[in-house]
């Protein structure tokens, strides 16, 4: 009896894994597919009959690093993204602290205003921003990208951090006050460590948005000096060589891997961050 129960239990477990495994395969299919494209020779890409087991080739891999300044694009991406996230955190943490902890007239309106900047279609501000940056002499530089990404993400980074701060019991701050700590000490020693998961989540989401940012990058980066992965990827689709699908696939994969790793690493916090405090964690 007991062994039968154990058997049916293990059967249902197998079934469950089979279903989940199938679903995972389905979701990963595009990734596997462009990996398969990326590591095959150019001659095996466009054929009359599909080739399921292509020849393995590193042609495209060498090509993207030798013929294109791929390291530069990667470096630009990393600098612009990390810089923008740092700017966001420096601005968002005090803003969120103020929005979540002090009561003053118009506080909720200010909070909503900050969030509302995210609701605007980017195309509306594209041209004014282009002129602003041109007049400031910032076109075609990584610094400009940093500022743009920071500006785009600032609203929801503030909002996510604010939602985490709201969940910290007021008692903690009262305790710190009677223990003799000032506001900045409380923020630095009590609040920030307590909401570290929220800060990480907000940073990662900001990074993902920044990696995927295309419109403003294209507007501001006019030469490879400031190209990032997302714009470089777009540039592969044209040129004298025609469409180089295997290189496109590999660059796309390179742009995808860092995000993928980070998301897997913090997935537990991510869903919480995306609900922006609507659900208690």
């Amino acid at each position, binding site marked *: 009896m007991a062994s039968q129960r154990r058997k049916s239990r293990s059967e249902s477990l197998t079934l469950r894994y089979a279903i989940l495994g199938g679903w995972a395969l389905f979701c990963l299919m595009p990734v596997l597919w462009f990996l398969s494209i990326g590591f095959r020779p150019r001659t095996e890409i466009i054929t009359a009959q599909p080739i399921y087991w292509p020849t393995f080739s590193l042609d495209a891999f060498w090509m993207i690093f030798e013929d294109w300044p791929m390291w530069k694009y990667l470096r630009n991406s990393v600098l612009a993204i990390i810089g923008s996230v740092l700017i966001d955190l420096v601005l968002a943490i005090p803003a969120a602290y103020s929005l979540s902890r002090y009561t003053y007239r118009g506080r909720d309106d200010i909070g909503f205003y900050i969030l509302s900047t995210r609701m605007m279609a980017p195309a509306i501000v594209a041209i004014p921003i282009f002129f602003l940056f041109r007049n400031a002499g910032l076109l075609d530089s990584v610094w400009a990208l940093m500022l743009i990404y920071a500006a785009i993400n600032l609203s929801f980074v503030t909002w996510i951090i604010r939602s985490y701060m709201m969940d910290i019991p007021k008692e903690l701050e009262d305790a710190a006050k009677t223990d003799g700590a000032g506001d900045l000490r409380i923020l630095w*020693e009590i609040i920030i460590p307590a909401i570290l998961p929220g800060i990480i989540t907000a940073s990662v989401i900001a990074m993902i948005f920044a990696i995927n940012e295309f419109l403003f990058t294209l507007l501001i980066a006019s030469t490879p000096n400031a190209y990032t992965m997302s714009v470089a990827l777009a540039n592969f689709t044209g040129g004298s060589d025609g469409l180089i699908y295997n290189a496109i696939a590999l660059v796309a994969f390179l742009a995808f891997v860092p995000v993928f790793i980070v998301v897997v690493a913090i997935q537990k916090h991510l869903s919480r961050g995306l609900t922006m405090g609507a659900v208690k964690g």
Partner: protein
Amino acid sequence: MARIELSGIQKRWGKVVGVRDVDIEIADEEFVVFLGPSGCGKTTTMRMIAGLEEPTEGEVIMDGEVMNDIDARDRDVAMVFQGYALYPNMTIYENIRFPLRMREVPKGEQDALVRRAAEMTELTDYLDRKPSALSGGQRQRAALARAIVRQPQVFLMDEPLSNLDAKLRQAMRVQIKHIQRQLKVTTVYVTHDQIEAMTLADRIVIMEGGAIQQIGTPDDIYNDPANTFVAGFIGSPPMNLVEGAIDAGTFTAQGIEVTGLPAALSGNVVLGFRPEDCTVGGNTPHLKGSVFGVEPTGDLTYLTIKVGGQQIEVKADRAFRAELDTEITVTFDPARICLFDAKSGERLR
């Protein structure tokens, strides 16, 4: 150590009055408990002493100095919170050391002070753990250790035991009182639990509706309640309160007649008597009713009697048993009877 004086303290939020006209002087080394139901203003009063809340009117004075404009962090008070408020990212050691760091106690002295506080609260073995790895009682002791570590002028404790189970609560109560006596620090303690108030306090301040109802020693409060609120709040079960009329020294209500009361009183009054001041039977019984419930607890028996439309609680002998709905008589101890004005609820003397 410090003397605390609250003078004409009021707290209003718009039209809502949280605390009204609180006047009290707390002596050096005294243990004062603010007792009352939730929303009575006791915690707000304590937060005003701590500097976490600003009084709308009145003054908070410590050792003769008006503290109203002095920040919480610059008042030499230590507070223990209901939810412990331990810093989750720090170990217990770091938690206890935090106030020393903030007050810039010399580094060399910090360790010894932390260890002493941990020893007094029996936490020495848990110093390197995070708060999340401790039980409720241990967390409470850690919060206590953090409060006592820098020997402040005043301890403020806001329902520190309300999250603990009954057994632990009793053990912690003894510990808190012991530590307070040892350190001789003026202590203000807020609770809604009358047992805590009775056992801990030198003096109890009973609050209701934002106002002080009575200030007195636990004995005063228990034996000599100032009004029906205090009478009905203190004691377990609390004082029986029966509305009736008094004339020429005789109180009458349905099923109850008490003679020999002060002849000067007349009109509608409330008669109060404690369950333990009643004897079942007696030659000249004061009360006649029917048995509504019998609850033996081992050391005594709670007897509920239905008189008129009202239930009267009596603490009877532990061997006492009775069938439901049987007729029963009760005699009171006349010296222990209290009379209150029926309208204002104030004590008549």
